[in-house]
């Protein structure tokens, strides 16, 4: 089986700051991958290069057997790359339903009733149905994060990029989110999830990577990666720190 997403030799720097250096990554169909790493490690830039918001200085992004490096963001979305933003970016003047309808109509390419149906179903699934006719600008943080996920799902993705969707949420809210991501995974959608809330991540992913200084310093099953001395040093401030302290 061919891999779904393949990054090879991605380079990106902003002046002196290196956000990606010869990055390679392969994500299989339906695979759930978590990415951790300190602030400024290049996690969000990595997503931006996958989704098409950011052009790499060098390297190639291959999705679903096609080189998409030169393709604009909307085409990548239509090809099956759905994403969320770390700081939610709802269409504030539109209702929640309209927000999701944009993704269903433009991202999935559905028309009329089919698009509306998809939007309505995704809202129900993401626990936003009661807020469907509310203006997105009036949503709470949890609802905004859910809306990010809902929009990403409504585009009909084969790969969903989640950028810190659990950040800033309370513990019960995080658990609800983990459950939602579980449902998404169960449908065979590949997930790449950047998260600082490590326990949420560990519950959901098959594989964990640690990004630091624009390179992956660890890659493997979550328990192994979290025990890696290099990861502990970078991410938890040293091997002697207890994991619970993070």
């Amino acid at each position, binding site marked *: 089986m061919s*891999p*779904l997403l393949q990054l090879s030799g991605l380079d990106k720097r902003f002046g002196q700051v290196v956000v990606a250096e010869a*990055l390679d*990554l*392969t994500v*299989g*169909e*339906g*695979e759930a991958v978590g990415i951790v790493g300190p602030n400024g490690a290049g996690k969000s830039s990595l997503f931006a290069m996958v989704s*098409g*918001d950011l052009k790499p200085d060098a390297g190639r992004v291959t999705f679903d057997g096609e080189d998409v490096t030169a393709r*604009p963001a*909307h085409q990548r*979305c239509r090809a099956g790359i759905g*994403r969320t*933003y770390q700081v939610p*970016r*709802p*269409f*504030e*003047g*539109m*209702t929640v*339903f*309209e*927000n999701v*309808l*944009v993704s269903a*109509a*433009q*991202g*999935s*390419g559905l028309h009329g009733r089919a698009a*509306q*149906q*998809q939007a*309505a*179903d*995704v809202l*129900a*699934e993401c*626990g936003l*149905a*009661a807020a*469907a*006719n509310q203006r997105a600008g009036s949503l709470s943080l949890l609802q905004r994060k859910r809306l990010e996920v809902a*929009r*990403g799902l*409504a*585009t*009909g993705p084969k790969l969903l990029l989640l950028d810190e969707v659990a950040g800033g949420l309370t513990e019960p809210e995080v658990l609800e989110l983990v459950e939602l991501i579980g449902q*998404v995974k169960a449908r*065979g*959608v*590949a997930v790449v999830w950047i998260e600082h809330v490590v326990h949420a991540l560990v519950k959901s992913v*098959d*594989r964990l990577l640690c990004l630091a200084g624009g*390179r*992956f310093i660890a*890659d493997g099953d979550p328990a192994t990666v979290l025990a890696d001395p290099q990861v502990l040093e970078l991410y938890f401030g040293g091997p002697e720190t207890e994991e619970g302290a993070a």
Partner: protein
Amino acid sequence: MARTTPPTTEGTTTPVAASAAPPLPGALVTRAGRASKASAGVLALAVIVLAALPYIAFAGTTSSMVTFFVLLIMASMWNLLAGFGGMVSVGQQAFVGVGAYTVLAFANMGINPFVALPLAALTCSVFAIPTSWLAFRLRGDYFAVGTWVIAEVYRLIIIRFDSLGGPSGMSLPGLNGMDPVLRGALTYWAALALAALTILGCYLLMRGRTGLALTAVRDDETAARANGVDVTWSKRLVYLVSAAGCGAAGGILIIDSLSVQPNAIFSVQWSAYMIFIVIIGGIGYLEGPLLGAIVFYALQQLLAGYGSWYMIILGAIGVAGAIWLPRGLWGTVTNKTGIQLFPVGYRLNQPWTLPPNLR
């Protein structure tokens, strides 16, 4: 070091479609609320009453209403451009001028200026294609300044043509033989028809699939792109439509005044009017330019006798509006009440607001 790992899950990657709940009968969404149904009637009535105006009002009234319609058309076009496309242009006078000169050029060839009006709109959208290649390379402030410069370039090119009157302009042939009262009425009707068509066109555009995408672009371009909206295409479409509308408005202007003067028709003042009207009325709302044009027109009539105070008061109102009503008059109303005169929104119907297991 980066490693690649073979896929761990043998998933079936069907694109996500939703949970398995069976579709419910009946409409999923409602488009028009009570306010918008009422407003459709009121607007239709207004157009009918306005159409009858030449029979019941003095020519002076209808003539000044022509200015109102022209401003309404221009402002609606600028609202599409800036409000929905995020393109703050101060160079729409380029198309006002090109539209006026197109009518002139056709009139010189013996074509009736009224017939030339739609041709002026068409010509402007054709001119807008290469213009957009140039202007779209610029962003934000640079786009604003760039469009202004482009408008100046159009003016400088057009005054090279002696057949179009050169730098001093020329009078419009073809309507001299016509009875002034009839000509005035025809001009009024043409302006009214174009204004009504502009509003109807904007409404139909914004109500459809493209309109939903444009509204998303209005709110957040990056997020729109990430959700599958072809932002560049949307912007180009809006730019072409807006050029056509401004071209038609320019055509009305030359028919109304029976002459054209390049400095006046290519004046940046047109863009200033458009901006003022849209900012006051409410940017990014179809209702905004309509409300703004009424306010602007009323102010113009009220303050006409006050000389330079007119501009000072207008400026003060513009500043006050930008500070205290950042969404304009209509934006403030609709945010408080949720009223839409033009039903472009979608309301999800009741059963769908429940999760599948509770329906």
